Structure formats: C-alpha cells, structure tokens
C-alpha cells in the first residue's frame, strides 16, 4: 500500500523541473505500453501469467538434489572439499566450546567482564557480567555457551571473508563494480532462502548453520571495509608513498589502520547479523539457544521460549554496546581504560591474568557447571501472563472489539482487496505499475531491474503466490510506517519518550521472531493477519530508530528560524522537519520493506500461506524444487521492492 501511495505526495514535494522529468518518464512509459500491451494481449490473451513464459525447474532441481544425496558419500567434490570444510567448522566450534566449558561459568563471566572493561569501561563491564549471570540464572548456561561457540567461529569466518571481499573492492575499482550487485543481493536475500541448498550439501547441523551465517553476515563487513579503504586520507597516503613504501606496506601501515573505525563498525554489524542468524539456523539443527526457543514452541510454551530468548537479547545488547564502544574510542584510546601503548598492554595482561585466576579458582572448587539450584524459573509466570492477556484481549472487549475481530476485519477489508486487486490485474499491468513507480524515483536501470525481478517470479511459475505475498508485505509495510513514523516523531520531540523506548526497541529488534509466534496466533488467530502482525513487530524498531534520528538531525538553524517566524509545533514538524528529514524517512521506508520481507517465512509458520509457506514446506520436506523456487521468488520480490523504494541519490552514495 505504502509504496503505491507514497510516490504521489513525494513527487509533489519535488521542485518544478524534477516534476517535469517525472512526467516525461511516465509519458515515455505510457508510449511504450501503448505499443507493447496490445502485442502481449494478442499473444497471450489471459490476464494471468502466460504459461508459455514459465520455466518449470522441478525436474532439474529434483535431479540435482537426488544427485547430491546419492553422491555425497563418494564424489571427490564432497570428499575433498565440502567434507573438509564441514570438518573444519565442526572442529573449530568444538574447540571454542571446550574452551568455554573448561573455563567454567565463573571464568567465562570474568573474561567477558574484563574484556568489556578494557574495551568499553566499567559500566559495560558490570553489564556484561550481569548478562552472563542472567543467562545462568535462566538455566540456559550450556545452550548459551553453544551459541557463543557457534557465534565466535561464524563471526571470525564472516570477518575473514568480508575483509577479503572488502579489500578487493576497496583496492580495485573494477572489482568493486562487480562486487556491488552481489553484496546488494546478499543483503536483500531472506536468510531462509539459502538454508535449503546449504543443508543439502552439508546436512543438518552446525557446519550448515555456520556457512549460512557467513553468507548472511559477511556483506556488511565487506562493504564497510571497502568504504574505509576508499575513505583513507589522501595526504597521509601521499606521505607514505613519498617514504618509498611498497604497495603492501602502504596497505598494512596506512590504509588499514586509517580505516579502523569502519572496520570496527563492520565487526559490530556482522556480529549482530550473525546472532540473528544463529536463531534462524536452529531450524536446520544448529543447537544452542535458538534450538531451545524452537523446541519450546513445539509444546506451545511461550515462557520457556522466552527463557531462551532473553539470553539471546542479552548477548546481542552486550556485544553491540561493547563493539560500538570500541569503534567510538578512536585515536587508539580504548574507552575509559585509555593510556599509552605499554600501559595499555600491561592493563590487558592484568585483565587476562585475573580471568585465568577466576577460571582456575572455579576449576579447583569443582564449580564448572552452573549450579542447578541457582536457576529462576520464569516460564510459568510468563505463560500465565500471556494467557491472561490473550484471554482478555481476544474478543468481547467493549467498544473497540477484540484482537480477533480486528484480525478478521483487517483480513477482509485490507488484505483481501489488495491481494485480489493485484491478482485481478493483468500481469502486464502489474509490471507497468512497478515501472511507473520505480522510474520516476530512480533511473531507467532501477526501473528495469524492478520489472525484471517481478517478471522472474512469473517465469519461475509462482506468479499468483508471489502477488499474495506482495499484498501481505505491502499491508505490513503500511502499518509499520504509520506506527513507526508516529512513534518516531514522538521520540524525536521528547527525550523522555526516546529514553523509555530504547530498551523496548532493543528487545524487539533482537528477540528471535520465533518467540512471538504463539502470542501472535493467540491474539489474531491463524492466517495472514498474524503474519502481518509478526512482520510489523520485527520491522518497527528500525523504522522508529531511523525516523527519530532523521528528525533529530534536522539543521537546528532551520528549526530556529521557523520558531522565530512563529510556527506552531505542528507547522514546524510538517513544513520544516519532515521535508528536511526526507532522506531519512525514505531510508526508513526502504528498511521497513526489507525487514518485513525477512519475516515472510515466519508468516508461513502462522498461516500466512503463499511463498512463506512454500519455503517452509521445502525445508520441512527436503523438497528443493518447491523450497528453492519460493526462496528465489522472495529474493526477486525483495530486489523489486528495494529498487522501488530506493531513490536515485542513495544509489550513488552507496558506492562510496
């Protein structure tokens, strides 16, 4: 919905000549349509996607899947390449896991806190220790260590891959151009889409999970590495050159140290993405916390799922804050624990010694495992609370009606008309509509990519379910934007609201989506409405954050002059803040779309049907043909929506 309706006001806000350009583009498009549509209509008269234009991939994909299963134990490709890769992953995860277990709960907590202290100061050190202890108190120590072991290996691998790609992109203009679309695609790719092929090659378990995580988490590292290398100060580089440094010395002594800030930001992003993937990977048997969440859901136990979800949130918050602090403290002084070279190393040495001492004490005391008696059962009270909430909100609430009534109305009044409208339009009309939206916003290339991406879903033979999914995505994005912009404006205008919101947003953003599967169904019933609700919850934090930040960064001078002219609060917002924050708002739209699309699969788990269900079906049945085609269609939808919502000026910036 939003993407269909927003362009109109946006165009009106553009200055005169741009409006002309948009009109010109649309006229050209209309001309092309006038020629092409009768042709298309004459050839394929029906309104739905013509069968002659589809390619059935069932046979080759099933063949490929059978070939892999039959040859996995004997073909050299597996014996000498994938097999070693798989063993390598297993060995490294195992090594880290054994070290963590060997250090015991006290040792791990101490080491975590001391690292946080050295990197980010005393407050975060206390926070880190509290977070680790909370994981133990929730009875999740061992799963937390399994997830941590998986994360360490996955993040290291992602960083290596990301830095290598980033070096290539940062040093060579041509490689950068070649890499950019690849990284773009990797980032809009919903994680579920490539779980299936990875599983087929590596089988269920940790290696598949780690590799899927690397695909997901490496792009931000690569992008930021390239960005950092390109952004290096020209004068410094010239100075290094004049000293007669070789290309290699120049890279190691000047360009990489100068890009430190971007590298650390990349690390931060990679960790966050890897952590969210660690949960999704539980579907393919990654073990750890994600698996606990997933197993708890099988017995419809929100409380137990939450008990495993909280450690994930805690890990995410701690890792985020610590790596972010490391990135902020530039100029070589690490946060508050600053100091010069030698002093810094001594402090590190003391910290290391302290951690080892604690670990040894734990060992000697025979207290390696988290004591069973020290756990706080939170499952029962949480389940009671969820039960009470759903009982009282589901139906029969006076005046506003229950959530089930809302869900029913939302389905009948919003989801059905949008879906039927999209599916009722002739296929060429849908493609034209996409072109008409994408072209005025971007270049002809953006429009072409968007149209081709959508057409690809037709070629893959999933035109109807794709439009069904699209209708859900559009509805979810519309709701997300309405709620997100409203909340973002409130947070931008009041510091108190922002402070109150921050932890809530943290939790929503990092809590594994699986946890709110059950409450969502209990509130909205099975169907597309809960799927939309789950997507909104997931995408909302990012939209709120970007909106708030965008509004707050509006030039204070502009605000000041508006105030001095006697503008009211609403006028300031409408006429100064919102127009000036337009780039941020557009970014929020774009992020909203990408994030909503990432939860389509979760929608499939609560009755959303369409592509999400087919992808889940493929994974559950080991049916590569269904699953991969659905996954590819989701990717195509993502690409299309990304292009449609991505204004031309951002594209140029992205390449930096």
């Amino acid at each position: 919905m939003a993407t269909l309706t927003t362009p109109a006001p946006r165009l009106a806000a553009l200055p005169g000549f741009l409006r002309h350009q948009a009109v010109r583009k649309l006229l050209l498009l209309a001309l092309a349509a006038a020629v092409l549509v009768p042709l298309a209509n004459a050839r394929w008269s029906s309104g739905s996607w013509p069968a002659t234009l589809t390619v059935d991939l069932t046979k080759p994909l099933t063949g490929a899947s059978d070939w892999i299963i039959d040859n996995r134990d004997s073909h050299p490709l597996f014996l000498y390449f994938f097999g070693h890769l798989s063993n390598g992953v297993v060995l490294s995860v195992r090594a880290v896991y054994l070290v963590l277990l060997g250090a015991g709960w006290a040792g791990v907590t101490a080491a975590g806190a001391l690292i946080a202290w050295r990197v980010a100061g005393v407050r975060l050190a206390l926070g880190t220790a509290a977070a680790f202890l909370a994981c133990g108190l929730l009875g999740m120590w061992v799963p937390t260590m399994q997830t941590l072991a998986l994360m360490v290996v996955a993040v290291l691998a992602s960083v290596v891959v990301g830095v290598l790609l980033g070096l290539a992109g940062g040093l060579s203009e041509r490689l950068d151009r070649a890499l950019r679309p690849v990284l773009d695609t990797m980032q809009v790719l919903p994680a579920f889409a490539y779980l299936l092929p990875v599983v087929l090659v590596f089988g269920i378990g940790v290696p598949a999970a780690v590799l899927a995580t690397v695909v997901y988490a490496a792009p931000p590292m690569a992008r930021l590495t390239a960005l950092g290398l390109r952004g290096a100060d020209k004068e410094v580089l010239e100075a290094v050159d004049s000293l007669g440094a070789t290309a290699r010395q120049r890279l190691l002594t000047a360009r990489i140290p100068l890009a430190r800030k971007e590298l650390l930001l990349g690390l931060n992003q990679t960790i966050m993405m890897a952590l969210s993937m660690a949960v999704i990977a539980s579907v393919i048997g990654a073990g750890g916390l994600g698996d606990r969440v997933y197993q708890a859901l099988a017995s419809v136990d929100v409380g137990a799922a939450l008990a495993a979800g909280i450690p994930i949130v805690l890990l995410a918050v701690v890792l985020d804050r610590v790596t972010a602090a490391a990135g902020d403290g530039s100029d070589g002084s690490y946060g508050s624990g600053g100091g010069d070279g030698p002093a810094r190393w001594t402090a590190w040495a003391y910290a290391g010694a302290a951690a080892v001492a604690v670990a040894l004490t734990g060992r000697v005391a025979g207290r390696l495992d988290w004591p069973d008696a020290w756990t706080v059962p939170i499952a029962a009270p949480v389940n009671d609370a969820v039960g009470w909430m759903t009982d009282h909100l589901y139906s029969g609430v006076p005046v506003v009606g229950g959530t089930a009534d809302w869900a029913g109305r939302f389905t009948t009044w919003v989801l059905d008309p949008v879906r039927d409208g999209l599916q009722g339009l002739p296929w060429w009309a849908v493609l034209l509509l996409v072109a008409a939206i994408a072209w005025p916003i971007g270049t002809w290339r953006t429009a072409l990519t968007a149209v081709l991406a959508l057409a690809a879903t037709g070629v893959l033979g999933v035109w109807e379910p794709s439009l069904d999914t699209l209708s859900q995505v559009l509805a979810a994005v519309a709701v997300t934007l309405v709620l997100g912009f409203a909340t973002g404006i409130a947070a931008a205008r009041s510091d108190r609201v922002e402070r109150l919101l921050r932890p809530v947003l943290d939790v929503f953003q990092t809590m594994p989506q699986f946890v709110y599967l059950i409450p969502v169904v209990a509130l909205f019933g099975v169907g597309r409405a809960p799927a939309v609700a789950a997507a909104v919850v997931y995408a909302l934090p990012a939209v709120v954050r970007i909106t708030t930040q965008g509004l707050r960064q509006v030039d204070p001078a502009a605000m000041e002059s508006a105030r001095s002219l006697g503008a009211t609060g609403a006028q300031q917002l409408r006429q100064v803040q919102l127009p000036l924050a337009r780039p941020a708002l557009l970014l929020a739209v774009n992020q909203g779309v990408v994030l909503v699309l990432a939860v389509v699969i979760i929608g499939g788990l609560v009755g959303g049907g369409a592509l999400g269900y087919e992808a889940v079906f493929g994974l559950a049945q080991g049916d590569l043909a269904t699953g991969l085609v659905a996954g590819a269609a989701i990717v195509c939808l993502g690409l299309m929506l990304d292009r449609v919502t991505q204004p031309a000026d951002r594209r140029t910036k992205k390449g930096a």
Partner: protein
Amino acid sequence: MRVRMTCPVAVTASLVLLTGCGAADMTKQASPFANARGTKTVTLSVQSWVGAQSNVAVAQYLLEHKLGYRVDTVQVDEIPAWDALSQGRVDAILEDWGHPDQEKRYVDDKKTIARGGELGVTGHIGWYVPTYFAKQHPDVTNWKNLNKYASQFRTAESGGKGQLMDGSPSYVTNDKALVDNLNLDYQVVFAGSEAAQITQIRRFAKERKPFLTYWYAPQWLLKKVPMTEVKLPAYKEGCDADPAKVTCGYPHTPLQKYLNADFAKDGGKAAAFLKKFRWTTEDQNEVSLMIADQKLTPEQASEKWVDSHASTWKKWL
C-alpha cells in the same frame, strides 16, 4: 599489523592439518557439542510434535540417569531428520510416521540407516470436529454431510468457503486433493506449524466455536479439547498411491524407530536400549500432557513417569 593478518592463515592451516589431507567422510559427521569432557553422548532427533518430545524426554532421562550417557537433542523436521541420521549427525529417530521413499533410499539401498523396531504406538491421521459440536450435530461426523455445515466453519481466511485447518508443512497430508476430489465446499488453510494450529484450536475451544481440522492420534491435545473424528471414505491399501486422485482417508500406522547404521552396530548399551524402547499410547500421552499442558520441563515430566512405571522401563535396560 602483520600478526593480525597471519592469524587467520595460521588457523586455516592448522585446521587442514587437523582434518588430515585425505578424504573426508561425510557419513561420520558428529555434532561439535557431542562427547564434550569425555562423556559418551547420544544425539537424538526431536520432531516438532509433543509425542515425539515425550519419547525423547524419557529416553534421555533413562540414558542419562540409568546408563550414564550425555544426551543431546536436535529439533529437525522428519525428512531432514532422515538425512541427518544417514550422516551420523543424529543417532536415532524414535517416532517415524512412514516414509517409504526415504526407507528405500537409506535403509535398503545405501544401508546407512538401520531399522530400530516398533515404538509400540499406532498413529492415525484424520479430520476432526470438536466433540461439543459433534454432539449438537451428530451427522457432521460423516464427510457426506460436511457441505451442509460449510458456512458454520467459515473464517476470514477461508473466503466464502468452510475452513479446513491443516498444520505443519512437514506432515503427511492429502487434504487439498481430498477436498477437490470429494467436491467439498472447503478451503484448506495451512496453519504452517503445529504450535500455531494448537493455539488456534484451543482458542476456538475456549469460545466453543465450531471448527474442522486435520489432526492425529495419539495426541495430548485430544484430552484437553475432546474432538470427534469425521468419517472419510475408508482407507484401502494403495488407494493413496496417486496423491492427486486420492479419495480415501488415512491409514493406521504402527510408528517405527530408526537408528544410524554405525550407531546400531557400535552404540553399545545406548543402541541396545533404544532398540528395546517400546511403550504404549497411554504412556506417551501421559508424558505429553505433563509437558504440553502442565508445562513441566521434559525432564521433570519424564522423571515423574519413570518413578511410577519402573516395570515398563526395567525391561529396556
């Protein structure tokens, strides 16, 4: 800086050395979390329904407390579980609802999976309506009368038709074909996961609304929400051979156990125990109900069951 650059290289090199330069065996892929600290580990696959959780919970409890093993559990859907079993990622599936294709591929042809005998529970899939509704309208329990009630089963999701709710995509179902071939005025709505389906069924039951759902026995939920099966045309051997032309209901399936072939041979006490593991539908439901309804952890539930059923499990050890 040089130190940082060479570190990943060193790690990779040592990994290659550790794994050796020969062929890697893809049929021996244990979990990295197995056998930590020298204890013997058995890895069991859990499927997403609670009955499967109960089998695993009791087996895990006995393996850990009576035989001294450590047990890892991994939640995997049925077909991927077969694959994982053949690779050695998991050691056993304790409840299989019949997968002839997989059985042929892995047990008969590749011999990477061995049969583990019957679980002792017989499974049956069918269509169910809540008993409170069946009592008011006794003729709803025959499929021929279902069209009469279609309007009562309508939801926002099913359009103008009645809603037949199906569950997880991993379950065996012919429902779409059945609705078509029996000319029923129904729309199959896939809940997408069993958790979602159970939540919705309990919700309907609380409101005492009529509903029609794909469901199966044995299942603990039948105790909380009594449901009556709708009679479909009787199952005959081979009547479901062509999934598109099916016009018959579902068979009764004696549930099976499967073990990884190597584990079955060298698994020692654990493998022998899992082969002998055999209990009744009532036993399974008792544990399932404790897990899913009373929200005991699987461990607490199995401890309770083990304490009161010594005669049953003593035979397995």
